[in-house]
């Protein structure tokens, strides 16, 4: 009997009555609820609502003073025939490829060079990461001094006998965009390097040992071990690069303001100058919508592909 009764005593407690179970979700601690709802409210007020306002403004003509005048898709139709918009879009793609591509390549290169724990490697890592810490506007001011007609770069060229290459780097439409990319790259490479360093640290050394045992050379180890293992980091780097490319503004604005005559114009600088200098806030908002759609579209399509591959 004792044997028979014992399991009854140790059997799991009966399920709670139905009514109590139904009220379960309501027992979410108020603090947790607050942690969810307060940020949601803040986000709604400071992000979602202004974004919706931006969408509405994109459908209006507005000078910032009078009441906005609803024009439907008029701003987007105008954009289709706007040469400056086309220049800015092409420059933005160029920026994405050059700034994005080079920062990924150089960042990965720097990470591979500096991944080994050797003496003094910390100094080099810190030196490469240092520009990330500086404000981009301060960075731009320093580079402005470098690019000045009497600046460091031209003096350097002169001192090594390359006078013919002396140039007004930021005032020439052929060089302005490329001259602006350099400081942006200078800053971005350290950041990408840190992301890749973290990725490299996460690779199991046993994989390299196994590859070595199999007779793989350095290139084959990089091609068949390192790169596949960095796939997760690549997704992060790519997202960061696309977002940073599309929102690149401060360095260009500080150095050239999109000039000379729109030759270094990006969608972001064109949006700013249209909205806040020419006071065409409706058209500026329409440009902002285009930037948002581009950023969202590129990142979403990449992520969807990445998830499909993962499946």
């Amino acid at each position: 009997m004792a044997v028979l009764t014992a399991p009854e005593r140790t059997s799991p407690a009966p399920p709670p009555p139905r009514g109590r179970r139904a009220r379960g979700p309501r027992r979410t601690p108020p603090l947790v609820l607050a942690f969810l709802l307060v940020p949601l409210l803040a986000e709604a007020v400071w992000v979602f609502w202004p974004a919706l306002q931006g969408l509405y403004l994109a459908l209006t003509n507005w000078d910032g003073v009078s009441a906005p005048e609803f024009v439907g898709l008029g701003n987007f139709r105008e954009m289709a025939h706007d040469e400056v918009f086309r220049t800015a879009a092409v420059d933005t793609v160029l920026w994405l490829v050059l700034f994005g591509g080079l920062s990924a390549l150089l960042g990965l290169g720097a990470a591979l060079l500096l991944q080994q724990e050797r003496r003094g490697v910390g100094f080099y890592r810190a030196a490469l990461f240092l520009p990330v810490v500086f404000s981009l506007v301060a960075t731009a001011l320093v580079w402005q001094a470098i690019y000045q007609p009497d600046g460091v770069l031209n003096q350097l060229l002169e001192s090594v006998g390359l006078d013919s290459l002396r140039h007004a780097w930021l005032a020439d439409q052929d060089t302005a965009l490329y001259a602006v990319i350099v400081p942006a790259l200078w800053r971005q490479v350290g950041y990408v390097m840190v992301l890749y360093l973290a990725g490299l640290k996460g690779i199991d050394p046993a994989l390299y040992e196994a590859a070595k045992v199999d007779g793989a050379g350095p290139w084959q180890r990089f091609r068949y071990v390192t790169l596949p293992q960095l796939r997760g980091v690549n997704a992060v780097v790519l997202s960061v690069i696309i977002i940073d490319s599309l929102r690149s503004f401060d360095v260009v604005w500080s150095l050239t303001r999109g000039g000379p005559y729109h030759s270094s114009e990006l969608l972001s600088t064109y949006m700013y100058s249209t909205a806040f200098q020419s006071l065409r806030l409706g058209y500026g908002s329409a440009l902002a919508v285009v930037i948002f759609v581009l950023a969202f579209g590129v990142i979403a399509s990449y992520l969807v592909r990445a998830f499909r591959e993962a499946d």
Partner: protein
Amino acid sequence: MTNQHPSRRLLLAGLGAAGTTALLSGCVTASSSGKGSSGGGAVTLQSNLSAPQAKAAMEDLAAAYAKQGSGRASLNTVAAETFRTQLPTYLTSANPPDVLTWYPGSVADAYAKKNLLLDLSDVWASPDLKRYSTALNKLCTAASGKKVFVPTTYYWWGMFYRKSNFAKWGVSEPKSWDDFLDLCDKLKAKGVAPIGLGAGGNTTWVASAWFDYLNIRINGAPYHRELLAGKHRFDDPEVHKVFDRWQEVLPYFDPNGTAVAFQDASTALLNGRSGMMLIGTFFADAVPKNALDDIDFFRFPVIDPKVPLAEEAPTDGYFASARTGRRDKVFDLLRYLATAEAQEIYIKGSSGTALPCHPDAKDSGTPLVKKGRKHIEEAAEITQFFNRDSSDALQPATDTALTKFIAKPKSVGSILTTWQRDAEQIWRA
């Protein structure tokens, strides 16, 4: 029971958020009416005079106003570029600054048409302002007939040079356009860039002075004002004539003219790397005091003697927000700013190259300023400056057109077509 507290808090937070949202939406788009600041306290004075000497002079002025006992002004200095882009927001906000530094003429009139400026007719009834010149009176009157601006100082534009450098190079002030071209040739032969510009960096607008002056010398000030008000086209034959003449002097421009800001171009002028520069007296803020006595200027050369002589003499001063809650205090401050005493305090504290608007106020008395006053008095017409006679919104399109012309003078046809198209978009907005 315990769940009721967070609910109530959440409800309150929700109401707060909804209220904030409504408030924000008001800030973003509406030009809703609001009573704004309360009647008490100091008058808020928003200033764009951020150059060190000018800022210090404004502080002296605020202190002097407080000392005379009728009220107080709380000075808030904002960097000039930020001020310019934020001005529409200041004026349309529910709680605007009471008094703001800015420009009279078409710029002020544009805001007055939107009922954003306080009617200052009562202030203009003061004994001081009654004595101001008819030209200033007209400049500060909006299209509605109301006074909307109190002018305090003005300055002039001219071809500035360094006397000792001209003496060293053995050249003198030109009297005509041909003399001017001769002078450029002589300077070029001496290895000096004859004409400095300073339309790079953040001061691309400086190039507009060349357009303004050539246009008022060739087509006259009335045509210039009408063009800038959208009554003529930028691709008209008259405008083409301006650029034809500009092409004659373009080879004498400093090749770095569109690569450096006017402050750096001023340094090149002082160092003798460039010979002369079309600029306003504000550039003196960057000139060391000991070099100031060595600075001189001449009138932009006359091109067509039949065209009445016009000069650029931008006027500065103050307007007030229509939404101020301190109307009487604002009037008191503006009456004070219009006095000879206040204008002298400002001139004494700043670089001293500005001229006071009050007929009794003393200028700094230097030979340069005396010559500047005579220069303006001899003009049959006065213009302000490109953005002041047109609008701030048109300035970026103008900067693009003019710097492109300087780099690619042969493309003038397409440049003017694009300029006109951009201008139409801005006027339509």
